[in-house]
C-alpha cells in the first residue's frame, strides 16, 4: 500500500463522487426549488446516456457536443414530462405520495420506451478523442477521461452556484423555493419557473448519464441503480442542501473506491453501510443544519 496506489484510488473515488454529485444535484435542485420529488431522475440519466450514444454513433457528432446535446435533450423531455403530467397534480391533497407514484410510472414507461427505441443489448460509447489515454508519473497512472469528468463537474458546480446565488433567474428560483404564492403575486410566472427548473434538473441528470457512458456500459434499467445512489447522497447530505450533497458524494465516492480496491465483490453494499451508520448516529443527515424538520 504505497502512496501512488492511494493517489490512483483517490482519483477514481473522486470521479465517482463527481458523477454522484452531478446526479444528486439535479434531484436536490428540483426538490429544493419546486418541492417535487422526482423518483424518475435516474431515468433521465439513462436517457442522457442513450441520447449521447445515438448522437455519437448515429450522427457522428463530436463527443462533447453530443454530451451537451444529450443534456439538452433530457432537459426538453423533462420539461415535457413536467408540463404534461406532473403539473396536473400540484396542490392535490397528499400530493407528496402522488408525486412519487407518478414519477414511478415515468420510470416504468421510460424503461420500456428505451428498450423499444434502442433495444435491450448493452451499448458502449468510446472515450472522446484526446482523452483515451492516461497521464503517467512514475507509478501513478491517471486516466485522462476521469480527470476531464472531475473538471467538468467542478465547472458545473461553480456555474450552478454562481447562477443560483448571483443572477436574477437564480434569485427567482430561490425565492420560489421559499414562497411560491408570493412570487406569483409579484408577477413571476411560477408554473413556467417550475417547468424550467425541472428541465434544468433533468438536464443535469442527462449530462451525468452522457458523461458516465464511456465508463459504464449503457443498459436499460440503469435508472433505478442510479436513483438509489443519488438518494443515498441526498439523505446523507440533507435534501436541498447543495454543499451537503457535495460532501456526501465525496464521502461515498471515496468509500466506494476503497471498497472496490479491497472487496470488489461486496463493494456495492458499502454505500448502504454508510447510510445505515449515518442513520443510527445522525438521522437528520450528516451535513444538515441542527434545527431541521420535526415531523
Amino acid at each position, binding site marked *: 500500500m504505497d502512496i501512488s496506489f492511494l493517489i490512483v484510488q483517490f482519483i477514481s473515488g473522486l470521479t465517482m463522487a463527481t458523477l454522484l454529485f452531478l446526479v444528486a444535484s439535479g434531484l436536490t435542485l428540483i*426538490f429544493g426549488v419546486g418541492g417535487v*420529488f422526482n423518483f424518475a431522475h435516474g431515468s433521465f440519466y439513462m436517457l442522457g446516456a442513450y441520447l449521447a450514444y445515438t448522437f455519437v454513433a448515429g450522427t457522428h457528432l463530436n463527443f462533447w457536443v453530443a454530451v451537451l446535446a444529450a443534456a439538452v435533450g433530457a432537459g426538453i423531455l423533462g420539461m415535457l414530462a413536467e408540463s404534461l*403530467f406532473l403539473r*396536473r*397534480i400540484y396542490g*392535490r391533497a*397528499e400530493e*407528496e*405520495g*402522488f408525486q*412519487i*407514484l*407518478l414519477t*414511478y*410510472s*415515468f*420510470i*416504468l*414507461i421510460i*424503461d*420500456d*420506451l428505451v*428498450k*423499444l427505441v434502442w433495444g435491450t443489448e448493452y451499448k458502449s460509447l468510446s472515450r472522446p478523442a484526446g482523452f483515451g489515454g492516461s497521464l503517467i508519473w512514475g507509478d501513478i497512472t491517471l486516466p485522462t477521461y476521469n480527470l476531464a469528468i472531475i473538471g467538468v463537474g467542478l465547472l458545473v458546480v461553480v456555474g450552478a452556484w454562481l447562477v443560483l446565488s448571483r443572477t436574477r433567474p437564480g434569485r427567482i428560483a430561490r425565492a420560489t423555493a421559499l414562497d411560491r404564492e408570493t412570487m406569483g403575486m409579484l408577477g413571476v410566472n411560477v408554473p413556467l419557473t417550475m417547468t424550467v427548473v425541472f428541465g434544468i434538473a433533468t438536464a443535469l441528470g442527462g449530462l451525468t448519464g452522457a458523461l458516465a457512458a464511456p465508463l459504464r456500459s449503457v443498459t436499460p434499467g440503469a435508472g*433505478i441503480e442510479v436513483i*438509489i445512489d443519488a*438518494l*443515498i447522497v*441526498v*439523505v446523507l447530505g440533507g*435534501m436541498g442542501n447543495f454543499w451537503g450533497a457535495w460532501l456526501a458524494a465525496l464521502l461515498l465516492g471515496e468509500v466506494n473506491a476503497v471498497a472496490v480496491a479491497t472487496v470488489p*465483490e*461486496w463493494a*456495492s*453494499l458499502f454505500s*448502504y453501510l454508510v*447510510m*445505515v451508520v449515518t*442513520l*443510527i448516529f445522525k*438521522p437528520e443527515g450528516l451535513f444538515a443544519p441542527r434545527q431541521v*424538520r420535526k*415531523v
Partner: protein
Amino acid sequence: MEAVDKKKAAAFWGLFALIFALVPAAGNDYYLTIANRILVWGMFAVAFNMLFGVTGMLSFGQALFSGLGGYGVGMTVKYLGKAWFLPGLGLGVIAAALVAYLLGYLIIRAGGVFFTILTLAFGQLAWQITFRWYNVTGGDDGIQGLVPPGILSNRVVYYYFCLVLVLGSIWFLRRLADSPQGLVLRCVRQNPSRVRFLGRRVRRNQRRVYLISSVFAALAGGLMAGIDSSIHTNMLNWTTSGQVILMSVLGGIHQFFGPFIGAGVIMIIEDVVGARTEYWSLIIGLVMMTMVLAFPRGLVGEFALLKARLKWRALERAERS
C-alpha cells in the same frame, strides 16, 4: 341502522368466502393457482395499504418483508428438510417482525419522502445481499422444490389452508382499521400535530402499523413460496414493492377492500397480457399514470362515488315529482 350494517357485513364476508371456497370445484389447476395468487397478493396489498392508504406512509420496500417470509420458508426447507415448511413460515414471520421493529426505529424518524427513500434503500440492500450471497441463498438461482409437507402438498388442501389464513388476516386487519387504533392511524395521516395535541404519539403509532403491515407481508411471502414451490431473489426486488403499490392504487387506497380488488385485477391482466408481451413495465406504468392522473380514488373509490352520485340524482328526481 347498525343492525343493517352488521347484516350487510356478514353477507359480504359470507359471499367473499363462498366465492373463493368454490374455486376448487371448477377442478382446474390453472384457475386454482391464479385464485390462490389473488388471495395471497390481495392480503399483501391490504396489509400494505394499512401503511399507505390508512396511515399515509408510502413504503417502497415491503418486498423486503415478503422476501423474508419467502426465504424463511426456503432456507429452512433447504437446510432442515421438507417437514420444516410450516416452522419456516413462522420463522420468516418472526424474522420480519424483528426486522420491522428495528428498522422502524431507524427510518420512521424521517418523515414523508425520506421514509419512502429509506424503505427503498433498505429493500434494495436486502436484495443485494440475497443476490450476492450465493453460497447461502442460492443467489440468482433461488431455491426450488419447496413443496409443503404431508397433506398440504395437495394443491387443493394448500389452497384452503391459504384461504383460511388470508381470510383470518384480512378480518383482523379490518377490525384493526375500524378500531380506535385505526382511527388514530387515520389521524396520523391527516393531521399529525392534532394527534400530538390529543396526547397520542405519532411515531409510536407509525412504528406499530409498520410492524403489523410487515408481518402480514412476510406471511404473504411465505405462502407464495408454497404456491410457486420456489423462491427467487425477484421477491425481494423493488419491482415487487412497486407491484403491491400499484395494486393498492388501482383498487383505491382509501377503501379497505380496494387493494384486494386491485390485486385481483392486476393478477388477471398479468395472466392475460403478461405472457404475450415483453413490455409489461410499460403497461403497468401506463396503468399507474392513468390512475394517478385521472382516477386517484381507484376503481373501488370511483365506483362508490359514481354510485353515490346516481343515488343522489334519483333522490333529487323523486323530490321533484
